[in-house]
């Protein structure tokens, strides 16, 4: 594989030989399960597709329910792993999820696309097969299934429901969820309400009555905007002030968590929601997770932390180089998308998901905000005008994201007009462009995945120093740019150190070398045969360690490297003066 212009080690080149098939006729890969990505899928459809794919690829995919949502929907992940190359939790793994904000409906589609594409590519496409043989993937399509169901089944807007469905007294009147929006025209969307008003400050456009325009200071209007579709269900004189839900689950994670008065939507305490808790416990329990991706919409961004300025020190320079390299290449893969920093380019986020995995757990983590307005016209029109947008909706989407205005009898306002842009508009990728958005975001995440640490033993030199004393110089190499321990993990003592052990003969001393040219070691004063690598193996680099061993010629030693992210690897070394002492 040649991602990032860096050649991956020879260990994996042999994989190519497994493919007996000649060159494929076209780029398309046939799969056992066909899923259309020119449409959005409901909760049930995504569950069904996950089940179908798992059934079609039983050797690759295991479904695991890691928890239940507030409304008792199963939180089911797909564990994508080739067991022939090791157990999923003994190799670096990537966590990928979507739809924590349920209105941001592309996220789950990309996660489904990822499972769909990877499974059908295994054994067919060399690059992706090699990726899947080296790493495992944990795919959770819907972090917030309850609100996705609400979006599809009942009502929704492009911006709602973002939170979960946990009942919350938003307006602090002692009643819970007593006044949400209401779909008065029955179109399955919450749109806008207008009422005829002789003193109104709005008028309908003469040529296109779908457009309401504010009148000038000296003009007379005919319409007043009443807000979102709904009635005053609890009769307090306010409409839609306490709807279903909930917590913003992307503020409910334990890293830099702040209560609601500081971070709106935070939830009652870190992991107070069953959804975030289930994921959190899975991630904490799987220390092999070496990369995290979460999908949101919109704006076209690849975001990294920090979520707040005071967390900047959680991104030491060597880690930033990793983010920058992946993020900048991502800008090439995702036209109109930008690589940005959450607190600087967006807003402060306390208790966010990827900021937790990055800043508290030390895992390289990205959030993608899918879809960007520049993609509508793609000729340098980054922010289309109103007129251009109507052209797009009418001529490319054939009016399908707009609900025509209709008259509805409203209990408080009499006859009102209800209609406008529906829930499929604005933030959501037009369906005919969805597959491309899925593919490009998937490809970006595979780029990230391909850079999870990949360790292998490098050179080994055995030298007799006299009598029974030998020096054994070893090298552990990491071919990719993510170190086995990120700098933030090393600095803050997150997780366990990597271990380098030599057993089978008495190690009397050992120490590290900066390069093969070094002649003296930096001594490991204690436990010379069990070496703590607190900084792990650096990205695109190596750790060189020299052991002084007492043993007889021909003695067989075991050299072992253990890392939380990379699992365990070992090789046998024979005390011998012949050139190749390893096997």
């Amino acid at each position, binding site marked *: 594989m040649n991602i990032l212009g860096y050649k991956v080690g020879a260990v994996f080149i042999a994989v190519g030989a497994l493919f007996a098939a000649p060159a494929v006729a076209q780029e398309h890969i046939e799969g056992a399960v066909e899923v259309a990505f020119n449409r959005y899928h409901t909760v049930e459809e995504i569950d069904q597709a996950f089940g179908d794919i798992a059934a079609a690829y039983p050797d690759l995919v295991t479904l695991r329910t890691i928890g239940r949502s507030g409304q008792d929907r199963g939180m089911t992940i797909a564990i994508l792993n080739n067991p022939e190359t090791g157990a999923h939790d003994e190799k670096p793994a990537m966590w990928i999820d979507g739809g924590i904000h349920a209105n941001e409906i592309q996220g789950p589609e990309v996660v489904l696309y990822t499972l769909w594409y990877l499974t059908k590519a295994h054994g067919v496409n060399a690059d992706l097969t090699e990726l899947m043989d080296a790493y495992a993937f944990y795919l959770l399509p819907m972090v917030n299934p309850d609100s996705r169901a609400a979006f599809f089944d009942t009502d929704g807007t492009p911006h709602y429901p973002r939170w979960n469905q946990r009942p919350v007294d938003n307006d602090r009147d002692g009643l819970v969820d007593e006044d949400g929006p209401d779909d008065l025209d029955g179109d399955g969307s919450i749109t806008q309400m207008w009422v005829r008003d002789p003193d109104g400050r709005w008028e309908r456009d003469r040529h296109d009555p779908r457009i309401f325009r504010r009148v000038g200071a000296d003009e007379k209007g005919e319409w007043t905007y009443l807000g979102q579709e709904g009635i005053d269900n609890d009769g307090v004189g306010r409409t839609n002030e306490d709807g279903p839900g909930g917590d913003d689950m992307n503020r409910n994670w334990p890293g830099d968590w*702040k209560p609601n008065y500081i971070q709106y939507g935070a939830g009652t305490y870190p992991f107070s929601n069953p959804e975030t808790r289930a994921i959190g416990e899975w991630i904490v329990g799987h220390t092999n997770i070496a990369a995290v991706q979460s999908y949101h919409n919109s704006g076209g961004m690849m975001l990294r932390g920090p979520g*707040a300025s005071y967390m900047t020190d959680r991104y030491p320079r060597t880690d930033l180089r990793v983010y920058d390299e992946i993020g900048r290449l991502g800008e090439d893969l995702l036209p109109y998308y930008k690589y940005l920093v959450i607190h600087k380019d967006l807003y402060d986020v306390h208790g966010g998901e990827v900021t937790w995995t990055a800043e*508290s757990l030390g895992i390289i983590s990205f959030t993608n905000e899918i879809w960007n307005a520049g993609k509508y016209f793609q000729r340098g029109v980054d922010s289309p005008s109103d007129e251009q947008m109507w052209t797009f909706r009418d001529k490319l989407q054939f009016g399908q994201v707009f609900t025509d205005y209709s008259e509805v009898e409203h209990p408080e306002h009499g006859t009102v007009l209800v209609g406008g842009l529906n829930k499929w508009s604005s933030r959501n990728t037009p369906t005919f462009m969805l597959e491309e958005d899925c593919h490009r975001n998937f490809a970006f995440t595979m780029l990230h995945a391909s850079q999870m640490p990949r360790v292998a033993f490098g050179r080994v030199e055995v030298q007799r120093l006299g009598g029974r004393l030998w020096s054994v110089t070893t090298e552990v190499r990491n071919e990719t740019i993510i170190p086995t321990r990120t700098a933030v993990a090393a600095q803050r003592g997150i997780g366990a150190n990597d271990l380098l052990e030599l057993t089978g003969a008495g190690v009397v001393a050992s120490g590290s070398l900066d390069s093969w040219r070094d002649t003296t070691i930096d001594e490991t004063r204690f436990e010379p045969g069990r070496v703590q690598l607190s900084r792990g193996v650096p990205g695109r680099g190596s750790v060189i360690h020299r052991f002084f061993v007492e043993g007889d010629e021909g003695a067989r030693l075991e050299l072992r490297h253990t890392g939380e992210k990379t699992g365990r690897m070992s090789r046998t070394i024979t005390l011998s003066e012949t050139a190749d002492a390893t096997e």
Partner: protein
Amino acid sequence: MKMWTSGCGFCMAGPLALCVLAAPVLAQGGVWRDESVIGDSRGGHPIGVVTLGEPGEDAFGRTRDQRPALLIVAGVDGRHAVGRAAAAAVGERLLADHRGLLGSHTVYIIADMNPDGARLDSGRNSAAVDADHDGRVGEDGGDDLNGDGVVTMMRVLDPPSEYGLETGWVIDEGEPRLMRKGEASAGENGAYALLVEGRDDDGDGLFNEDGPRGSGGGGVDLDMNFPSLYPEHKDGAGAYPLSEPESLALVAWLQTRSNIVAVLVYGPHDNLVKTPGTGKNDESGRMPRGIEKDDESYHKKVGEVFTDITGMTGAPTRDADGSLAAYAYTDFGVWAFSTPVWVRPDQVKKDEDEKKDNAEAGAEDGEEDGAGEEVDEATVLREQGVPENLIRFLTGDTDVRAAMMAEYETMSPEDQQREMAALAQLPEAVRVRVMAMAQGNPDPGMAAAEDDAGEAEPSKEKKDKPKADKDELAWLKHSDDDRDGAGFVEWVEVEHPQLGTVEVGGFAPGFRMNPPEDTLGVLFDQQTEFVAALLGRLPRLAVGEAGVERVGDGLWRVRVRATNEGYLPTRSAMGVKARRLPPEVVWLGVEPDRVVSGSRAVRMWSIPGSGGHADAEWVITGEAGDKIELRVRSDVYGDRVQTVTLREES
């Protein structure tokens, strides 16, 4: 030598009378008492909560769980046996002597918040921790080398160099049982290392760094595991806030108890003798480190009530990061008080001192016993404007520093220059330390660095002659004078397998936390008196008769006043800010289209005490003789309903 050690086989926390596990907890009380379990500890022991209050419904139709309540939590630190015993005893005494208060208020008691710690005689719970990140869990705690059954301290003269132990300690001339930092400027050579009694059990060159009774690891300190000001990644803080079943169980249970108005913690640290500071916030700028300015006078007043009863003039404190008290106040939004229940006798006003001016009663910061607990240095540095990366450098362990130095080495020359320029901006004292530690030298310490700098503020004490720590001297005096020397293990020589001849000794564990048995009765009486006084000062809500006034034909003004007849405001300033609990809400029972002015739901966030009031007022349409229902909703003070009739003269 008479050792101050355990008599109870359950928790080894001290004399039998102190052990709450060996005695029936609040067994009395009948129907005035209820017990349930909020969750299990990591070790599988149930954590019980006792509810005390008059059974049935009161005049407002409120059950026990709907009346204003005080929550007492003890035993967060498993070694603090006196707190557990006090919690149980206060409950018994309230039932026996204060049933009147238990009619209007509820008291919840969690007497043993950390059952694992109590059983292990540990400040922490029984979570498996790998404090030194070496892939081994709890492998190197403290060890009893001199066979006295406890782990104390170990002083090592000229330790072997390979361990890199930090020396600098001398035996105090005036009190040779105590160690203190040597002062090079006074011609002293600090040739001793001072560390927790024990071996390097795992042979990694570190002593007692990861295990029970050591200087690191050995479970999670629950009082660092709550979300407020959470000290992430620090030893003892846990994997994430509320990672521990005990702290999570308490917080989850609290969400179901919106009638709690105050929390009282019996633990090693005080916030009653010394009122927490104001005006400092966390890094987000919104959460107080300390208390809100508007709560200060109330908190202080409660503290005065406390010191009047107990006579305490000083008590140990520590930074509140991740503590239960910080959570209860800054997040749950209720009053939070804490006391060690017992303090050293010289920190209590004697009877003959009573006449002296009360105002003299000042707090005094006491050092903690036990290893691994210290004043939060990071906070001090932050206040001096030291950037976060340097704070981490100064407060981190050698691995952290090594990693940061390595990081520095890889920077471009420009970046390195920038770092140096930033360093030059810092106070001299900080700079001296950073430079020393960057060269791999041991931390010269703030004091030493300040001396070097020669521009730090002068120390409070005159430095004619170096003296042992004032607090330790006082503890030693208490041990000698009042405890038959039982609080201190005399130094004895022991052959150490790795360090050669060492001396083992120091303060007996738990000695500085728990009192002699004969003082318990007085302490429990004091705490009961304080709880009764506190309950008497909780807010009390009275809702007056609604008034009606005719404004015009078919137009009426309706108003109702809620009055707080208690002392404390219905919500602290912090409670209003946190908005965790819903406010009192007055609902007007008329159709929406009859309301001319006012909201049908009027929220009252806080009503000051001592007769403070809040009014709700509406103008509505209606006919004379119409009956209007007014409903006051309150999770804390109960719901009340009254009906008013629209008529001229009311």
